[in-house]
């Protein structure tokens, strides 16, 4: 059968990391995939070497709009690892609250997009509606809806006022019924089962071989979470469960994320109700020469920072590894062999902030354009509609 090349990407206004995918298809089946990156490479590692340790916190906060807590969190922990200090208890709790708030809004964002790709626009609207409540909570706590600027080496920059806590708890409680509804909508819906079960399977062996992280690997039965394995912040003082699923398909990745959102709510509520009194900052003045590593569990997996200091006020080397760097190559294992109408949701399932489907274009070998991205999303939505009618739901 003739092979067709399907280029996807690289630009889309919603996409935070422009990527260019080349799908090779035979008829409906994807037989090969290649990823080209670097369209948005801003040289932040190099930039960070030109800033002071304090300034770098804000530079790396701007690596990603959605993970704007994960990077400063990992970075400040790396700097604290150079000095080998622990931040005050209250700062640990505040950091945990901000990081979990970010996880909830990130998972909801993903759930909405995944619903949209599958033609479930109601899921999209509900998920993004309650995500607003979480962004309001973040605004109350940090003053910003995104880019919270809460972190600094040695502690946090802003305290949580005790008079804000009841309002925050009320807002967080208000999203729980809708979240329960969304959970039922996803877990019990037979059409969603047909679209996502057994699709894009990442086996446990592949997850380990590719070094997959976060919900992507936990859906494949790899019971690893930095929050449990290498506790930081207040995670060892709160009771919460690590969510693990076994099948590694799109459905399990969705289930892991939805159930994790509930755990995050549990963690935030516990931290807010048990916030210890005390200092929030160590007031670190000098960073001694040395090396430090900080790694934390971001919504998409482990974020890893390595910082090397030579005793001046600037890092001499700052390595940043975002979780998507490890999760993206798993496409080679998950997309190959699936149909083109499922490729969208499989790629979306690792949550690479992948929204560039509208830039998709299907061409035949002579380069004649057949479909554009919008039509591919429609193709995916039509498949759901067909299954829905056939099953009579």
């Amino acid at each position: 059968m003739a092979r067709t090349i399907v280029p996807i990407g690289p630009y889309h206004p919603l996409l935070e990391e422009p990527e260019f995918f080349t799908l090779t298809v035979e008829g409906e089946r994807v037989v090969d995939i290649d990823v080209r990156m670097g369209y948005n490479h801003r040289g932040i590692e190099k930039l960070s070497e030109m800033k002071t340790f304090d300034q770098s916190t804000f530079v790396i906060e701007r690596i990603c709009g959605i993970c704007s807590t994960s990077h400063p969190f990992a970075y400040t922990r790396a700097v604290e690892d150079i000095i080998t200090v622990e931040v005050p208890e209250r700062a640990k709790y505040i950091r945990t609250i901000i990081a979990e708030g970010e996880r909830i809004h990130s998972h909801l964002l993903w759930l909405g997009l995944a619903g949209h790709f599958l033609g479930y626009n109601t899921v999209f609207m509900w998920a993004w509606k309650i995500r607003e409540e979480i962004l309001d909570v973040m605004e109350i706590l940090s003053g910003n809806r995104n880019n919270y600027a809460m972190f600094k080496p040695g502690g946090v920059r802003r305290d949580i006022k005790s008079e804000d806590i009841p309002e925050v708890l009320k807002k967080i409680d208000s999203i729980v019924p809708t979240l329960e509804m969304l959970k039922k909508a996803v877990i019990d819906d037979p059409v969603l089962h047909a679209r996502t079960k057994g699709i894009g399977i990442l086996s446990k062996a592949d997850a380990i071989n590719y070094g997959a992280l976060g919900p992507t690997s936990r859906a494949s039965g790899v019971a690893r979470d930095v929050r449990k394995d290498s506790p930081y912040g207040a995670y060892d003082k709160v009771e919460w469960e690590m969510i693990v699923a076994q099948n590694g398909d799109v459905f399990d990745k969705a289930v892991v994320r939805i159930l994790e959102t509930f755990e995050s709510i549990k963690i935030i509520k516990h931290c807010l109700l048990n916030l210890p009194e005390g200092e929030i900052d160590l007031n670190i003045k000098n960073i001694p020469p040395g090396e430090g590593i900080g790694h934390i569990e971001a919504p998409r997996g482990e974020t890893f920072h390595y910082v090397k200091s030579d005793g001046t006020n600037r890092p001499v080397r700052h390595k940043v590894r975002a979780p998507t760097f490890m999760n993206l190559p798993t496409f080679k294992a998950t997309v190959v062999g699936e149909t083109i109408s499922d490729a969208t949701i499989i790629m979306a399932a690792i949550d690479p902030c992948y929204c560039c489907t509208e830039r998709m274009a299907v061409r035949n070998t002579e380069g004649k354009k057949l479909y554009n991205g919008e039509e591919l999303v429609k193709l995916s939505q039509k498949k759901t509609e067909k299954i829905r009618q056939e099953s009579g739901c």
Partner: protein
Amino acid sequence: MTREDILNDLSVRFKDDIIDVFDKSPKRVYVEIKPESIVKLVSYIFKDLGARFNIATGVDTRQHMEILYHFIIEDINLLVSLRVKLPKSKLEIDSLVSVFEAANWIEREIHEMLGINFNGHPDLRRLFLSDEWPEGVHPLRCDYKEWDKKAIRDRGV
């Protein structure tokens, strides 16, 4: 196995390959090894000790080119960083892609950013730098100089 068992086991098993062990803190160990032993040590740590490959960091320290391979052994919460020092006259080391696929992209990145060759890597194409970027210019090296981007600007890219 406890932390001490693993460190003792490594230093006995690979006594000819390990140059130095720096025990930084209960959760961090830096092990300097000979560059030619990298595949042997990594295979043991990844397959037998069940460690997860975090990432590799390339550092230009002026005297040497260093690569740190970070592994975490999650059961005992220990981050092991294997350090290799490559002389600037011979910037090459064996690729780890034969051991695990996770090394594929980071070796491509270090290759373009620092100009280190990975022997046996299946596909050392560029990952992040643009196609217009000149050959042989490596942005994370100490001696990196801003190159003439006028040609690109003129094209309106």
